[in-house]
């Protein structure tokens, strides 16, 4: 009965992560959600999630959702940093206001395919088709406890494929690690740092050599030199040639 419920109902700070609390009245589901898909979590739960997702992501590299969860639960310092960088930049500020989403439903794939070779739009579509990936497979954020920061991490995820395009890296393990190094320098997200550090363990010796001698140094130099990649309104630059955009951002040509 109710007596049992009020014993089970959490006090503030107890950290139960249910989507609502039932004391005497009923509460509509989603009253404590900050955005659709948001799951409020206590600090203990975040810590457990961070540890668990890190282990699982290493154990089963196909669990992309675990990489996403790791990013969300460890991003509490890096995400506000990124958001502030965006706020203080005119283009980034506009992105935060307008909240564009990169999705198949919002992209005009035919138009992009029709653009001349070498433009961002054409190369992006080529990248998607060659690697058989789609922008719609990005996980929506669940464990970020701020609605604006949730958008920032969502934007970071959706821009990831464009990073591949700008860096010229494929979606195999090697390419992903290189992009992670670049992103780690750019964003400071612990998930990127961990991915960059631990990703290579599954690579062969030959690939590791190429990685260590050429690709990673280049990725780090570019990452350091480049302005914040989240401050680029990519949707308004499809016609821009990739090389020109690289120069503008400060990414060195790939080796």
């Amino acid at each position, binding site marked *: 009965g109710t007596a049992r419920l009020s014993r089970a109902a959490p006090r503030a700070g107890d950290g139960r992560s249910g989507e609502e609390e039932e004391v005497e009245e*009923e509460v509509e*589901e989603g009253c404590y959600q900050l955005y659709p898909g948001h799951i409020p979590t206590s600090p203990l739960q975040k810590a457990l999630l961070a540890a668990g997702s890190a282990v*699982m992501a290493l154990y089963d590299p196909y669990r992309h959702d675990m990489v996403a969860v790791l990013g969300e639960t460890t991003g509490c310092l890096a995400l506000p940093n990124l958001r502030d960088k965006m706020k203080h930049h005119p283009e980034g500020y506009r992105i935060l206001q307008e909240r564009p989403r990169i999705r198949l439903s919002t992209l005009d794939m035919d138009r992009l395919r029709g653009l001349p070779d070498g433009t961002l739009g054409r190369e992006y579509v080529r990248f998607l088709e060659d690697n058989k990936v789609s922008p719609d497979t990005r996980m929506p954020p669940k464990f970020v406890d701020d609605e604006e920061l949730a958008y920032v991490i969502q934007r970071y995820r959706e821009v990831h494929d464009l990073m591949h395009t700008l860096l010229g890296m494929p979606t195999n393990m090697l390419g992903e690690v290189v992009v992670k190094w670049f992103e780690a320098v750019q964003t400071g997200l612990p998930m990127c740092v961990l991915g960059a550090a631990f990703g290579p363990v599954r690579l062969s010796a030959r690939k590791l050599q190429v990685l260590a001698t050429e690709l990673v140094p280049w990725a780090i130099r570019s990452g350091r030199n480049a302005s914040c990649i989240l401050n680029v309104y990519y949707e308004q630059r499809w016609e821009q040639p990739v090389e020109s955009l690289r120069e503008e951002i400060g990414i060195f040509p790939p080796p």
Partner: protein
Amino acid sequence: AAAGLCPYRALLARRGGALRALCGSVRGLAAGPETHFGFQTVTEAERREKIYRVFESVAKKYDVMNDSMTLGIHRVWKDILVHKMNPSPGTLLLDVAGGTGDIAFRFINYVRSVREHQLQRKLRHHQNLSWQEIAESYQEDKSKSLGDSQVVICDINKEMLKVGKQKAQHLGYSEGLSWVLGNAEELPFDDDKFDVYTIAFGIRNVTRIDLALQEAYRVLKPGGRFLCLEFSQVSNSLLSRLYDLYSFQVIPVLGEVIAGDWKSYQYLVESIRRFPPQEEFKAMIEDAGFFKVDYQNLNSGIVAIHSGFKL
């Protein structure tokens, strides 16, 4: 500001007042009788639908999650249930919400080993038989390795049954098992059919427990036994607090990391809190007509086995 902590909770709690009142009045207009889904309030139809979807989603990882959440102890609980049942060969068991087959397989193992002991005893008494007669007796006994025992596994969820059937095939269980899609509140069986009715970790998910208990009574033969293994209330207050902490902090995280499904496991821990305590459930079983109703706490009440007889 450090958004990682929960300052929003205080904010939303204050905002919640007006919203709650509005939600409350909307609820009043909702069609159908009201019940709970974990800590939410929903209509009965919504609850059935939501629970179906929970189990559809968890079916493939059900066994892995059980092992992770209970650190394998659920196997011991299920062993205890079947030992308590102490089925003899020839028993007809109905395992409701039997999904992935854990109880059914244990039942089969149990009657098989009882049967083997029976046969060994028989052989010892017949040591004066000729070799030929002994060989012949092997033949006829082989076809009755279960001694006509049978288990019907009934579940409302197709995905769970699918996983169960695959498991049975993988583990080599073929004879003596039947898989039936059915609802505990309205079983597709005739009256007075079964010797034993079990429901392990299933009755918590039934929307009308009273109907399920009535159905259990109906399909059991006179003399038949009702056995329910379910999460219950922990009496020890220290253990209870540790258990709550583990349930609400760790289990949904396990659900997310192992099965990629936080919400189903959040539902699970909430549904455990919602289930009636031992004495109340005992009274419900008695209301359905069962006699000699009793319960046995396992692990200080984390789990309880309730038992009753149809006379």
